[in-house]
């Protein structure tokens, strides 16, 4: 097996813990999304406007709307119409309830911990090269939030629903960025593997699901078993739609956490790009929340650093060059606060309704909505600053 240079040391360490999973992870560091990648190679032969049009028609109308498209494009969208046996939309409703009951805490955990932990890996490298989080950080964060909200709407992952379409759009964008980076002299395949590799997409999906549940639990969220299982199933299906290969797509929460932990061992320690992404994300978070006044923004950034450090631990926080801050009691206070809030809502239903509504409205403010319908333009250039279309 060919091991990219950046992974040699970590792989040796991970093999001692679980050789099979480590080997599976490493094999997929040099693999992308074969079917979608082949489509992007084909689409590259056609004018940009036609590419966008086919992708739009494929997502909106499926293979039947692609009579004039190359067969490889039709085949990709035909494959995506197949719903895996393990996905049960009715059972998934419990996951929707679980997410939205505490969406504020989930989003906080997502930004303050899960995304940061993702950026601590080589995942940050492609973002750093393209500049897509640096230049368009607020928009990217809001798009992430929108995707999360939609996959947890009742029916949100049905074929014609926004959660389905956004998941598939993500797959297309990933494939296109991978295609652009593969052609770019900036990408060092021998050292870093495949850009936006199958391992990384799987790692991120495991993090956005199981690790998110874990971090939210640290902040006082308690989901009953059926809601936890449904939460994971919805993410598993979204991961499937995003092109996570079956060999690395988790089956349940424990599997996802284990894959994530082995993947993390395989990854090299955080470098310049990771520090840049993690700190940039925290600095951008208040702006996403609409807080631009300088004093208020600084106070919130300081608070986010403190909570994030408490969630991810001192070792990673120091590796990411976080400012020092006290963590003693921080998580406990937040947990008690959330648990008290839940207890009050149980005895005061109007308060529960008020909180639900307020949380959802906040989620809407933190999410990206296009002016006129879902947009399907694909990136045309490696660097965000050169790409007017995306």
């Amino acid at each position, binding site marked *: 097996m060919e091991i990219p240079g950046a992974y040699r040391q970590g792989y040796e360490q991970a093999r001692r813990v679980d050789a099979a999973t480590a080997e599976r992870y490493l094999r997929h560091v040099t693999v992308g999304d074969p079917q979608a990648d082949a489509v992007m190679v084909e689409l590259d032969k056609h004018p940009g406007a036609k590419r966008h049009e086919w992708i739009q028609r494929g997502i909106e109308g499926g293979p039947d709307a692609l009579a004039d498209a190359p067969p490889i494009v039709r085949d990709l969208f035909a494959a995506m119409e197949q719903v895996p046996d393990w996905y049960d939309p009715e059972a998934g409703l419990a996951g929707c*309830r679980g997410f939205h009951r505490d969406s504020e805490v989930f989003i906080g955990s997502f930004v303050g911990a899960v995304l940061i932990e993702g950026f601590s890996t080589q995942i940050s490298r492609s973002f750093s090269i393209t500049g897509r989080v640096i230049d368009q950080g607020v928009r990217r964060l809001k798009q992430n939030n929108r995707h999360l909200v939609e996959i947890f709407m009742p029916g949100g992952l049905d074929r014609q629903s*926004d959660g389905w379409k956004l998941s598939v759009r993500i797959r297309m964008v990933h494939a296109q960025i991978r295609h652009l980076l593969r052609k770019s002299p900036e990408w060092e395949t021998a050292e870093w593997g495949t850009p936006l590799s199958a391992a990384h997409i799987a790692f991120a999906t495991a993090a956005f699901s199981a690790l998110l549940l874990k971090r939210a639990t640290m902040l006082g969220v308690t989901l009953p078993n059926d809601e936890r299982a449904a939460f994971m199933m919805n993410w598993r299906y979204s991961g499937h739609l995003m092109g996570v290969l079956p060999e690395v797509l988790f089956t349940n929460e424990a599997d996802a956490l284990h894959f994530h932990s082995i993947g993390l061992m395989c990854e090299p320690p955080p470098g310049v790009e990771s520090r840049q992404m993690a700190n940039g994300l925290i600095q951008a978070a208040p702006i996403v929340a609409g807080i631009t006044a300088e004093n208020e923004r600084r106070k919130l950034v300081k608070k986010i650093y403190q909570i994030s450090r408490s969630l991810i631990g001192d070792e990673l926080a120091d590796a990411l060059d976080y400012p020092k801050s006290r963590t003693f009691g921080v998580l406990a206070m937040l947990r008690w606060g959330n648990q008290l809030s839940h207890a009050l809502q149980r005895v005061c239903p*109007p308060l529960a309704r008020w909180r639900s*509504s307020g949380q*959802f409205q906040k989620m809407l403010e933190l*999410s990206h909505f*296009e002016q006129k319908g879902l947009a399907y333009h694909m990136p045309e250039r490696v660097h965000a600053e050169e790409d007017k279309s995306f």
Partner: protein
Amino acid sequence: MDPLSVLLTREPPFVTFTLAGRLDGNSASNFADMVAGNLSDEDRSVILDVHELEFVSSAGLRSLLGLAKHLDKLHCKAVLVGVTRSVGMALEIAGFNSLFHRAKNLEAAHAALSPKSGPAHGFFDRLLHRETQI
């Protein structure tokens, strides 16, 4: 093709918007524009007939929220008629159950919107009250 069709009917004093299809990222913006563009200053009683509305996404809920706030500013009373299971669940998990009053059918909606049924509750009042089933 717009996944949502909206039919406007006027039976004074009632204005009824009948929605069919999906209120989602592709249709929400047009829906909001259409409703705002067809309400006059004299309209006080609005019915949203959603018995053929199959699905509402967060974009759809966002447009409904915007509509509720807009109607509130115009001192309009509004009633949702024929909420389906799917739409009801979306409203529930978003905490929007009390965004609009609800009625089982058009007759009940007319009764709810009659002057005798009292003034419109404010937007925030409705959020605190139980949903109104007539």
